[in-house]
């Protein structure tokens, strides 16, 4: 791989695609800071980086879903500035996404030809026979012997992916991007995919391969590009990298965030004064399992503890929290709260017992966007203000509760209580969700990505609230993809990978590389 600025003559001869100085910011936060690299024609480039490094944004720009703020893309020697996904398709770029983009209610052939059905002349009627015959050819190329009129919903994850690839081949794609293609595949399906990838390489198709599974990247790719915080921090031929080098490149950013000081557990002043025994088991999770999601998860959350849950996307962190809060089913496992076994998990009963859960989807699951700030704050605790037989609301106590919690979460003073939450900034919205739960005075608080999309100032305030709550004897479980955040905030970090708990580190042993290796599932091979 050549740096983009190198000898022009040489690079234009064999480069298919080049990014030059791509920049992109969301709401003032730069997620891409001048990304430049080239992809040689017929080559296979691995793109690696932590969650939030900017891989997805870069790929969305390539696919026409987003437009860069600055920088240019060159495709086959000419400029390429896609305004929508159709532009990308027209130029022969295809995506195989992490979450497959097929319509389960349509047939295989219909999915492949969705945007350009072969028609009988000028009539609006689809030429089914011709379409299905072409589909059979394409399916044979990807090694699928399935009738093309089968509905996609009857296919396995691996088969669906092959259909996606057949769709890519149907547009004569010259560049195919794989985004975490193996996350939902079995081992056999993965082998089949890799065999197909080598056949496509032999046909001269260029590919970009994004994956957290570093072993696959080493096995498949000629070149590797490492992205960190929106910048290319390393690139070169695969043989010049080792796993250790790659991991340290991925994590090696300097600490730029501020965290409130965290005294280690058990050294936090007079326990008797605090009125609780720090470290007493609060939430005990034993053998929680759900096929395909979680396998035998056991851990204990203690009083006064801030427990982090680390892992890559799809490792099962959010799923674990959702199951613990009774939002998703589980097939096995028991949960104890304060030593008492919980017979049934449901949000209502858990809230009654003092468990709170801030979900990762602030807008779709946390807030009633068109309702007022006041109504959102009091949604969880509403019954406390209506204790008469008719459940008549006590206006004064509601109002004082809203005023109290506004001060606690430091909600922007310019906002009014009757303003729809929709009109608030992301940080203030999150403070409303957090305040809603804090009004309940939870004993166990589960937070899923509590600072996603929130500026540094509001983050710090949310961290402080988390510490305050823990200092008052609650247990806090924090899920975050931001490793800095977990290391700055937590007393202990659990690491998940593939639906299991793979590591457990107390604060004294926090180590970015160890956490990332555990999360990547490369613990064994990397251990000395």
């Amino acid at each position: 791989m050549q740096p983009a600025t190198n000898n022009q003559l040489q690079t234009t001869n064999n480069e298919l695609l080049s990014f030059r100085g791509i920049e992109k910011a969301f709401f003032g936060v730069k997620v891409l800071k001048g990304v430049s690299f080239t992809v040689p024609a017929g080559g296979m480039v691995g793109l690696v980086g932590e969650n939030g490094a900017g891989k997805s944004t870069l790929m969305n720009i390539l696919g026409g879903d987003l437009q860069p703020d600055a920088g240019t893309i060159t495709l086959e020697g000419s400029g390429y500035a896609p305004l929508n996904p159709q532009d990308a398709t027209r130029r022969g770029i295809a995506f195989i996404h992490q979450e497959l983009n097929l319509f389960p209610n349509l047939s295989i052939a219909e999915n492949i030809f969705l945007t350009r059905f072969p028609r009988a002349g000028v009539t609006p009627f689809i030429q089914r026979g011709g379409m299905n015959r072409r589909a059979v050819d394409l399916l044979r190329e990807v090694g699928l012997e399935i009738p093309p009129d089968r509905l996609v919903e009857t296919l396995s994850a691996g088969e669906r992916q092959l259909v996606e690839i057949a769709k890519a081949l149907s547009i004569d794609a010259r560049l195919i991007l794989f985004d975490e293609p193996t996350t939902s595949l079995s081992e056999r399906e993965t082998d089949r995919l890799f065999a197909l990838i080598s056949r496509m390489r032999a046909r001269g198709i260029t590919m970009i391969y994004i994956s957290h599974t570093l072993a696959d990247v080493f096995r498949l790719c000629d070149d590797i590009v490492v992205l960190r915080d929106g910048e290319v921090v390393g690139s070169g031929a695969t043989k010049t990298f080792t796993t250790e080098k790659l991991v340290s490149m991925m994590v090696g950013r300097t600490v730029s965030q501020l965290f409130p000081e965290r005294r280690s557990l058990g050294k936090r002043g007079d326990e008797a004064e605090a009125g609780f025994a720090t470290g007493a088991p609060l939430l005990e999770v034993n053998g929680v399992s759900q096929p395909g999601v979680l396998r035998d998860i056991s851990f204990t959350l203690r009083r006064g503890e801030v427990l982090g849950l680390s892992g890559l996307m799809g490792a099962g962190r959010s799923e674990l929290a959702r199951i613990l809060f009774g939002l998703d089913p589980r097939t096995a496992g028991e949960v104890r709260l304060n030593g008492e076994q919980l017979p049934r998990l449901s949000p209502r009963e858990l809230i009654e017992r003092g468990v709170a859960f801030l979900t990762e989807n602030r807008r779709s699951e946390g807030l009633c966007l068109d309702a007022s700030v006041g109504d959102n704050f009091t949604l969880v605790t509403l019954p406390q203000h209506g204790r008469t037989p008719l459940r008549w609301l006590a206006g004064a106590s509601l109002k004082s509760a809203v005023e109290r919690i506004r001060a606690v979460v430091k909600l922007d003073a310019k906002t009014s209580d009757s303003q729809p939450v929709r009109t608030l900034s992301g940080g203030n919205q999150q403070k409303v969700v957090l305040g809603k739960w804090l009004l309940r005075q939870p004993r166990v608080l589960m937070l899923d990505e509590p600072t996603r999309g929130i500026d540094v100032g509001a983050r710090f305030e949310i961290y402080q609230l988390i510490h305050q709550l823990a200092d008052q004897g609650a247990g806090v479980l924090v899920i975050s993809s931001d490793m800095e955040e977990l290391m700055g905030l937590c007393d202990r970090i659990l690491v998940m990978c593939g639906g299991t708990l793979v590591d457990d580190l107390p604060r004294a042993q926090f180590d970015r590389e160890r956490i990332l290796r555990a999360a990547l599932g490369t613990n064994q091979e990397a251990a000395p």
Partner: protein
Amino acid sequence: MTAAATTNHKPQTKNPLGWFLSEYLGLGLTVLLFLALAPFTPGLATSNNLLNILGYLLPLLIVAIGMTLVMISGGIDLSVTSIIALTSVVGAKLMTGDAGVPTIVGVLTMLALGAGLGALNGAVITLLRLPAFIVTLASMMFLSGFAIWLTQSKSIYGLPGSFLALGQRLPISLALTVVLALAAHLMLRRTVFGRWLYAIGQNATAAHISGVPVRAISTAAYAASGFCAALASVLLTARLETGSPVLGREILLDIIGATVVGGTSLFGGKGKIAWTFFGVLFLTVLDNALNLLSLSQFSITITKGAVILFAAVLDAVRSRFVVRSS
């Protein structure tokens, strides 16, 4: 949607568009319509006609109140007119003949039947997670057919005088309607139930995660709708002195139309009893005036359709203004 907790905010009184954004727009339009048509429409402003309007308005408003509760929760109830018909014939059957039950028993039975059928609607919708539209459409057809089968398509006459008074003495109907409207209003604004209903309509997932008993509350809204339909059935049956299996058949679209014209959202989370009152008033006055102008039934229906569409457009424009000005 802000009640006692949030009163430190005055609505846009200084906004030049205040009158347009005001929730009293519906009432203002009704008055405007009335004043505009009165000079041309013979008999519109007579006290006889106003009483006539009121008599027609009350049962419509009662059903629309129930519909408002259901629509705030994000649902719809198409079965209300069938509940009106079924409770009408069941009540009439009970109260007539040699073994007729006392009026009070008949009325309470009608109300309980209406509430029960509504609760059944709600239970099917929430437990089986089916769309409200299809469930209440099915129960509309089923209950309507059942009412006709029960009476072999015959109307039932000979209702007791004490029952007829409920629909024919205006002060009684008026008092019943006002009490119901006030109760519904206060329940929506000032009780846990009411706040939960709005929350469910705005975001059922967030409400569930926040510990709101979503299924129970939604089901209660349908039960309330069934109850309201039954109460309207009491007034209509008494007024017509007939237990009829096709009672109220033609008013379903008026009810939904009036509720939406008032400003209650078909998508849930937004609505007020006062708004619904304005909507019912507007549609009733319009209908009455067009009738007095001796327009054909077709042109009246055409006009009402246009007006409902206009109201929907107006509401969309207004909500855009509200979002922009806040």
